[in-house]
């Protein structure tokens, strides 16, 4: 799955570290421009490191929190096959969170620290996961729309200039290829089913469409910080470019399902070959980011509880390892 708000400004970051000589920065930029990958121990500007830590950890947190809305239907999945598929998908998300935390760790920040920042509310995760999954059709909508939007963003990240992040993304994209399809498949079966089932599918699209468009982050006009990320090749396409691409590929899929996209302004522009779509409610986006979405509190509370409840287990394992090591040393 995916993270957004890649353009958030790092308020604590100094403009340029005093120790960074212009020649060093130039040499670094030349490597980036030459499409060389930057590796963990290579010299890098402090701002590049911080930007990556913020983005990668946010991405990791999104994977972890993203397990919850889908997990909400795991015990109630309607068939054993669907249950197994959904479990495999949620497990992948745990795995992806893990790969991403590992990539973050190569930049010198511990997983513990990243998790602490999530639990304290300092670090963000994708706002999409603060929406509730109210019916089984929502599981389909998450796979189809949320993973669909995620893929748009993640594929360019496979070419990100930072080696460990790029490698993690290659692995993630490969594994996620079935995620979107399983979501679409859930909705297809619902749309071919009873009237109630089809209504369930339409209701899910109605609720998930706009939040999915918000996943791409603020419009280009509003997102002033992405220029640096583009120059560093952490980001390859602008938010609006990706959002447009998503709308262009998704609307025909909705048509195929016989579902109506909840946007009266949606219209295909023959000249440009793109869909024009209505205004996004950015106020809602800001509210959800700031913690006022329907499920922010619930998601964080569950994560905190799991973390706190696990403390004695993590400690026990370390205590045991310590005893064993002492035995071997003796």
């Amino acid at each position, binding site marked *: 799955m995916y993270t957004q708000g890649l353009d958030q400004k790092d308020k604590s970051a100094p403009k340029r570290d005093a120790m960074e000589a212009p020649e060093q920065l130039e040499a670094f930029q030349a490597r980036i421009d030459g499409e060389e990958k930057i590796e963990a121990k290579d010299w890098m500007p402090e701002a590049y490191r911080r930007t990556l830590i913020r983005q990668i950890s946010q991405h990791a947190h999104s994977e972890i929190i993203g*397990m919850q809305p889908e997990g909400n239907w*795991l*015990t109630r999945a309607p068939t054993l096959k669907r249950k197994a598929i959904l*479990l495999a998908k949620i*497990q992948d998300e745990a795995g992806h969170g893990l790969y991403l935390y590992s990539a973050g760790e190569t930049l010198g920040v511990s997983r513990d620290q990243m998790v602490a920042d999530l639990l304290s509310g300092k670090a963000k995760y994708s706002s999409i996961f603060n929406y509730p999954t109210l019916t089984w059709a929502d599981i389909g909508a998450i796979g189809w729309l949320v993973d669909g939007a995620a893929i748009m963003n993640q594929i360019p990240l496979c070419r990100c200039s930072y080696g460990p992040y790029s490698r993690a993304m290659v692995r993630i994209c490969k594994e996620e290829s079935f995620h979107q399809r399983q979501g679409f498949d859930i909705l297809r079966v619902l749309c071919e*089913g009873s009237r109630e089932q089809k209504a369930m599918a339409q209701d899910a699209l109605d609720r998930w469409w706009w939040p999915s468009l918000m996943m791409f982050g603020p419009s280009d006009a509003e997102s002033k910080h992405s220029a640096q990320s583009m120059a560093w090749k952490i980001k390859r396409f602008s938010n609006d470019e990706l959002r447009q691409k998503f709308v262009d590929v998704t609307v025909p899929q909705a048509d195929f399902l016989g579902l109506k996209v909840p946007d009266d302004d949606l219209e295909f522009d023959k000249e440009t070959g793109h869909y024009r779509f209505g205004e996004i409610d950015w106020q809602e986006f800001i509210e959800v980011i700031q913690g006022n979405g329907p499920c922010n509190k619930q998601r964080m509370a569950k994560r905190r509880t*799991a973390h706190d409840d696990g*403390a004695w287990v993590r400690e*026990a394992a370390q205590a045991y390892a310590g005893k064993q090591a002492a035995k071997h040393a003796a």
Partner: protein
Amino acid sequence: MNKDKALLAYTLRLGDNALVLGQRMVELVAAYPELEEELANANFALDYLGQARMFYTYAGELEGKGRGEDDFAFLRDENEYRNFLLLEQPNGHFGDSIAKLVLYESFYLLQLEALVNCADTRIAEIAARAQKEIRYHLRHNSQWLIRLGDGTDESHSKAQGSVDDLWRYTGELFAPDEVDNVFEAEFDGPDLFKIQDEWRSNVAAVLEEATLTKPEDGFMASGGKEGRHTEYFGYMIAEMQYLQRAYPGAEW
């Protein structure tokens, strides 16, 4: 009880055990103590769901009434389920889950090893596959029980409490009824008395390494094999069966 009936009942029980345990593990998703263990739990739950599907599919063929895996999972009532009571117990804390798995899988692995050589080829095939999965689970989970038992004072007392609480549900694993007896006689099925001896010594060895005390064999609860469950079970399957019950006949 005739041979065919016993085979069907035995197969369904295997499916019920796998599904009920799998469902309990599914409830724990996104609540594990560490990310890596989250992945392990999901792997194990997927193994159980897979086994349940294979056993149910086979049961449907044996029955010959057109029922499939989902009919057995979602459209049977509480008292038609014949899983062990141990498996339906609520999850509790991590130590409870681990203790439950070690106690059960120490039995299940021996059962599967015996089934690999039983006279029914389909059961033998499924068992051959399942035993590889369970052998790994059991090693992983036993290792965890040892870590908890021999970890901190807190983890030791928690793990001891888990083993003590769940011990009363282990008697049922080894109490043969008509289905077990007919299956053993007609299909060269597992000898539960023999399995019990091995189970005792294997479990004792793990508990010893975990510095835990083996509970005394006191009162043993039973009833799962006859469809008499604990109160917890009704809620579990009500949740699991909700969609199939609310929308009869729908495809998903």
